[in-house]
């Protein structure tokens, strides 16, 4: 169904009365996913947001327990309102399905499941990839709909082709007629051609585990968490005590304290082994466990790496040896 942007805005303003809405918002010149109160705040023309939508499901800080004088009480998950993630790019929506495999697997994490359950994802097909994007190299597509409950395909004239893809999507757009959910081929072809960067994952990555390459290429790494915190699939966390609470918070595998045990032993003490861990987790270990790579090619790690060493460069560099 073709809808105009103001129709969508009106629908969104209506929905925001009952739902908590996360949408792209421009702050100091950069676009972030934030809670919005009205459609007027939304940055429709964004490319890739700085943060990914993962924080809607794995918040940077989440209180698990609150201590009381007699023991502890568990804390309910956020507020009970249904939530809408609006205008998620295909890479981000797909990232959520990758986290699902970790958090909804054989030992489901109830807090994640609850947030996931009550959230509807409305995606926005991508017509503005930049030089760091490589979704087509890792099984994604700028016109992909994985993880979305409904998708909007920009027609280029301020209108959108709305596709409802699930019951949750149907609940948000009850008036949309049923169709097969297929994205027009012309759009797919053009969008995919616009993704110019390619990354070739070596089939025998494991053979390079002992390679000196990792020492060489990790030299410039600062061991910071810019890549991991912005990544839509990085999900490592820590559980810490804070005041009267037990809190789950983001953590990153490059950090000096991530694998350091209380007695001082650090099983990944060297910088190169941490750098390698991040690459292998995404391109070897995760695929071995779940059958797909844990990277959606959003390019954030390259875009924001302080020393210009994104994961795409790390993989391509390995190929070039």
């Amino acid at each position, binding site marked *: 169904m073709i809808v105009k942007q103001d129709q969508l805005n009106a629908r969104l303003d209506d929905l925001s009365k009952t739902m908590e809405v996360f949408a792209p918002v421009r702050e100091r010149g950069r676009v972030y996913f934030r809670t919005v109160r009205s459609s007027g705040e939304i940055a429709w023309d964004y490319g890739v947001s700085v943060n990914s939508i993962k924080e809607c499901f794995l918040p940077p800080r989440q209180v698990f327990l609150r201590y009381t004088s007699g023991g502890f009480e568990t804390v309910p998950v956020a507020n009970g309102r249904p939530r809408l993630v609006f205008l998620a790019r295909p890479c981000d929506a797909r990232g959520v399905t990758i986290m699902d495999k970790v958090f909804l697997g054989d030992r489901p994490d109830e807090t994640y499941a609850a947030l996931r359950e009550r959230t509807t994802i409305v995606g926005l097909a991508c017509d503005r990839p930049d030089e760091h994007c490589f979704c087509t190299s890792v099984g994604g597509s700028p016109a992909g709909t994985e993880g979305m409950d409904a998708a909007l395909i920009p027609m280029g004239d301020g209108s959108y082709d709305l596709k409802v893809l699930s019951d949750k999507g149907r609940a948000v757009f009850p008036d949309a007629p049923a169709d097969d959910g297929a994205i027009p081929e012309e759009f797919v072809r053009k969008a995919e051609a616009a993704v110019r960067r390619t990354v070739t994952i070596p089939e025998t990555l494991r053979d390079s585990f002992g390679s000196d390459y990792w020492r060489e290429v990790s030299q410039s790494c600062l061991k910071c968490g810019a890549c991991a915190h912005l990544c839509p699939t990085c999900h490592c*966390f820590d559980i810490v005590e804070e005041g009267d609470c037990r809190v789950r918070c983001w953590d990153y595998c490059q950090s000096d304290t991530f694998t350091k045990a209380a007695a001082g032993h650090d*099983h990944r003490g060297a910088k190169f082994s941490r750098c390698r861990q991040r690459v292998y987790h995404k391109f070897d270990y995760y695929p071995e466990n779940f059958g797909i790579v844990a990277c959606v090619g959003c390019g954030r790690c390259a875009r924001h790496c302080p020393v210009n060493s994104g994961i795409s460069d790390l993989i391509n560099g390995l190929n070039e040896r």
Partner: protein
Amino acid sequence: MKSLYTPRLARVKSIVAETRDVRTLRLALEDAADPFDFTPGQFVELSVPRAGEATFCIASCPGDEGVLECSVKRVGAVTEAIHMLDPESLVGIRGPYGNGFPMDTLKGKDLLFVGGGIGLAPLRGLIREVLRSRDDYGGLAILYGARTAADRVYKDELDAWQGREDVRTVLTVDPGGELPDWKGRVGYVPDVLREMAPKPDDSVAVVCGPPIMIRLTLAAFDELGFDPERVLTSLELKMKCGVGQCGRCNVGPLYVCKDGPVFTCAQIKEFMEDIL
């Protein structure tokens, strides 16, 4: 809302001071109706409010009625808080987690247990279990090393094992760690192991100790001609979640918390430099 990360409550029934910095806590779950089934080699997450949560292997065996035991070495904030606990205090407990020892594969084999320091803890549960059905197993040998004679844990149990005819128990301390009345060996575990020269034949070795000791002991077993499939070790990398989500304890694609902590030497060989 209750979640995977909500601990259950356990009461400290008694505390044994093993060494100057190791204590063994006997714990009983507050809600006894809720069963706590585990196999030797599994671990739990123990927590003290406002201090935090940390990983400890279960040092007792399932047959020990109504209690489970954990040995805690004082090294950081959480273990410090645990050491401050008095009997009858409450702790949080999550678990049991991990795979535990493959009891079925061990049946009928000659078993060689090699422990170092507090690394005897997971082996102790296993040894108790094995001794409980002694006839199901072949020859048993225990090699245990500690930094000094005073750093040995479970001293009474070590004596009891030494007193048994059907178990060969060899105790050693690191050079310089002996006292004048020390009657055991003096030397590092891997060296003593080489001297003992166990035959690979129908044996399974089970190794647990500090990282450096595991690494050198696995190398010694390799030299002795043991099949890496038949050398087991229990790893204890830093863990947080216990369920394969937080991303710390990878051994390649495997997680110590979920797929381990018990691994065969063959499973971890490739990733040795990342884990030990």
